[in-house]
């Protein structure tokens, strides 16, 4: 329980210092030092999120209405889809993840961010890279590798940008104060070290010294899966490990469990990827190894889930009030669902039917949206007020955002799972015409478009709210914005 979390509006005016006040001032100074870069990362991420959402809706509608705007080359489905995907991965996901990670690193290392403008430069380059990449894809310059569609000029720009941002984040460790490295820091440090490693390895093996034939697909999925698990997954889990204990004001249940969870995650999750190529033209051992790793991933999932659950035990009612907690816990629970689904669809007996169906789309969205993005929304609800010195203006908007997102992703997952199963069963039945399988999934795809509308509403509401905060139009209260009025005996009221 830490009552000193309320940010100071003007740290310099504080004169009378007790020990708690010293910490408070220190935090305020750290927050102030991260203000410009983190807000810049967040603002870019939100812009990309809106763009990606529009592209997503477009992709979804065109899939069941193929004649919609199909006569323009750069609006054809096969270009809009990778554009959507890459905007979400590199524009929204990576930007919001890195912004959050920078803030968390500064806080946890207890050091002010030096030369924040360098990070802003890195962020600007990253935006430029994404923009170049999207234009390249729409112009027909896609490379043809999943999640790596950006043409080389965009990839180089991204990598330059990353080396500035990443080395900055890792260097923050050099200036850290206090020796015990918190769990969140393991995950964040790992993410910042893993990303360049896998990006460089994939770029080298696919473009600079290309490997032969099917190995390109192997490297491609090795990268894509690691991006999902080791980059987005680590950023998401690390953030959850910070937000949940912080909001409820209670230490993590078990450090040992967390350590087990971290190292098994690093070890097993990195070996997945080939399960996406089940029974493809590969030596069977590669695929089997990945399926085994996928199954073994139950260990980190269970330990992380157990740890979060035990930390939260008795504090679940707080989700009624704290937006951060609500989003974060939803994300953490989705992580479990995502991992279980991942195990199921990688098993050979299921992959026979589901491998080439819409189920894999459901899986990706469960991971990138229900798990990662929801945790990041939660983090933004926590961090942004501390950067702008204002509280979120409308609890109602936060509620709309939450419920529209939850119903949206829920409906999308259900539709794609059900539709994918029907599609997969029909596809594996050679006595039916092939078009039967695509026709049978179309009603579900229309349902998915409906879910997309919900999510679009959620994102625009959120973006509007965020814009209000940026413009300094938030509330100037000293109490955080709660989702619901707090009871007369507000035991946990301070806990936001």
């Amino acid at each position, binding site marked *: 329980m830490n009552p000193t979390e309320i940010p100071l509006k003007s740290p310099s005016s504080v004169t009378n210092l007790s020990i708690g006040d010293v910490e408070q001032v220190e935090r305020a100074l750290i927050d102030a030092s991260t203000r410009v870069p983190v807000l810049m990362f967040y603002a870019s991420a939100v812009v990309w999120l809106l763009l990606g959402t529009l592209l997503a809706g477009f992709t979804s509608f065109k899939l069941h209405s*193929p*004649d919609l705007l199909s006569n323009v080359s750069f609006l*054809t489905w096969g270009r809009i889809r990778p554009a959507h995907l890459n905007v979400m991965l590199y524009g929204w996901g990576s930007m919001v993840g890195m912004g959050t990670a920078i803030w968390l690193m500064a806080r946890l290392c207890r050091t002010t961010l030096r030369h924040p403008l360098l990070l802003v430069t890195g962020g600007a380059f990253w935006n430029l890279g994404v923009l170049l990449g999207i234009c390249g894809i729409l112009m027909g310059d896609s490379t043809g590798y999943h999640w790596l569609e950006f043409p080389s000029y965009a990839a180089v720009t991204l990598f330059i940008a990353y080396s500035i941002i990443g080395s900055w984040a890792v260097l923050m460790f050099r200036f850290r104060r206090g020796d015990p490295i918190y769990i969140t820091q393991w995950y964040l440090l790992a993410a910042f070290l893993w990303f360049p490693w896998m990006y460089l390895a994939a770029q080298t093996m696919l473009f600079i010294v290309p490997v032969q034939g099917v190995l*390109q697909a192997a490297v491609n999925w090795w990268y894509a899966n690691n991006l999902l698990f080791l980059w987005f997954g680590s950023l998401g889990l690390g953030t959850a490990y910070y937000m949940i204990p912080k909001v409820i004001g209670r230490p993590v249940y078990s450090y040992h469990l967390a350590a087990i969870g971290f190292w098994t995650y690093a070890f097993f999750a990195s070996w997945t990827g080939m399960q996406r190529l089940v029974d493809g033209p590969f030596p069977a051992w590669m695929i089997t190894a990945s399926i085994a790793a996928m199954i073994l991933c139950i260990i980190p999932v269970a330990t992380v889930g157990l740890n979060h659950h035990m930390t939260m035990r008795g504090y679940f009612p707080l989700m009624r009030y704290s937006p951060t907690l609500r989003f974060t816990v939803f994300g953490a629970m989705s992580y479990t669902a995502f991992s279980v689904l991942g195990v199921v669809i990688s098993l050979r007996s299921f992959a026979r039917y589901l491998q080439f169906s819409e189920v894999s789309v459901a899986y990706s969205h469960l991971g990138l949206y229900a798990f990662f993005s929801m945790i990041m929304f939660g983090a933004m609800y926590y961090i942004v007020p501390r950067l702008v010195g204002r509280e979120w203006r409308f609890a109602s908007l936060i509620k709309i955002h939450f419920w529209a997102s939850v119903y949206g992703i829920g409906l999308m997952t259900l539709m794609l799972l059900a539709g994918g199963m029907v599609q997969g069963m029909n596809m594996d039945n050679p006595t039916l015409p092939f078009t039967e399988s695509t026709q049978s999934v179309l009603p579900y795809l229309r349902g998915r478009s409906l879910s997309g509308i919900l999510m679009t509403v959620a994102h625009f509401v959120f973006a509007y709210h965020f814009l209000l905060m940026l413009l300094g139009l938030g509330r100037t209260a000293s109490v955080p914005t709660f989702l619901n009025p707090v009871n007369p005996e507000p035991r946990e009221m301070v806990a936001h």
Partner: protein
Amino acid sequence: MKGFTPLVLGILATLAFSWLGLAYIPDLQIGHLDPQSDEEGTDIYPMPKSGMAERGRRIYVANGCFYCHSEQVRADYAASDIDRPRDAAPSPPSKWGDRRSAPRDYIFDRPALLGKMRMGPDLANIGKAAPAEEEAAPAQPSPANPANPVPPGASPPVANASPPPANAAAQQNAKPAAQPSTPPAPAASPSAANAPPPPANAQQNAKPAAQPSTPTEPAASPPATNASPTPTNATAQQNAKPPAQPSTSPAPAASPAQAATAPSPAASPSEFPAPYSAAWHHQHLYAPRSLNLDSDMPAYKFFYEKRRVGGEQSADAINLRGEGAPGEGWEIVPTYDAKCLVAYLMSLNQSHPLNEVKSAAPPAASPAAAKPVAK
């Protein structure tokens, strides 16, 4: 967690281990395969694709075709890919593949477009599904004349020169009459225009059944294949629609009949090019639902040019009827990109046997379907 260094080393080591296991070791195992050949060093497979086909691959990638079409056939024990007939060519049955795909099939592919989703059918063997005499042509790499503006499957430009009157006349006849029994309009499959029209027509009428297995026959065979299976299509559909029993035995003989999807019942069958011929691909790319009402593929009209007919109609113009037809005095012709894309599609063929893969050619398959492979 004690200390910074062990943490960083551990983080780097885990990913290095995974890279070693999933990228480096596989590269040692299957990363340096050579094409296969027989004892005399002939019959080499696979071969690099022609310049046009390689350019076509870029177009295939740029427009994201691989998001909906895979290019891999899974083994018979893993899935029923091998048993699956193609919708547009149920008789003679054209399957997704005779055998599973193997790493060696892809050694010249860059990128190797294995695919992740099947909102459209698998294309690993789409080139093999082409009518017999078109099939062989694009498989040969033609580095000698990379500037050849016409995909090997399409008719040579000579067609424009000699038989224009016959061509036009045939079209005139076919249009208003719309009799299903008329011999196929030569314009429907451009290669027919090569031959002197009257004897070709006569030959078509005389030919009783499909003979796709005689690739030596010069020009008459595509219309012949066209003429005979399409009526079967229609009847097969009539038969198959009402019962629609998915639980019937998956005997290969039964499946093609049920899978028959005749394009559009209203249209005269002779209007359609032979399934999976170059002309068929062009029409499919330009207007997918003119060939299969159930298709979910977007149209790629931006690959095609609508222009006024100068003199006589171009040989490679799309012979579209009814709704979407270009109108009197206009024609729709493929751009060079479209020709490359079709050349790429026609080059996709994994039917050559590989020593490391058992060919699971079903014994029940009709001899007409099995490609005569010299091996």
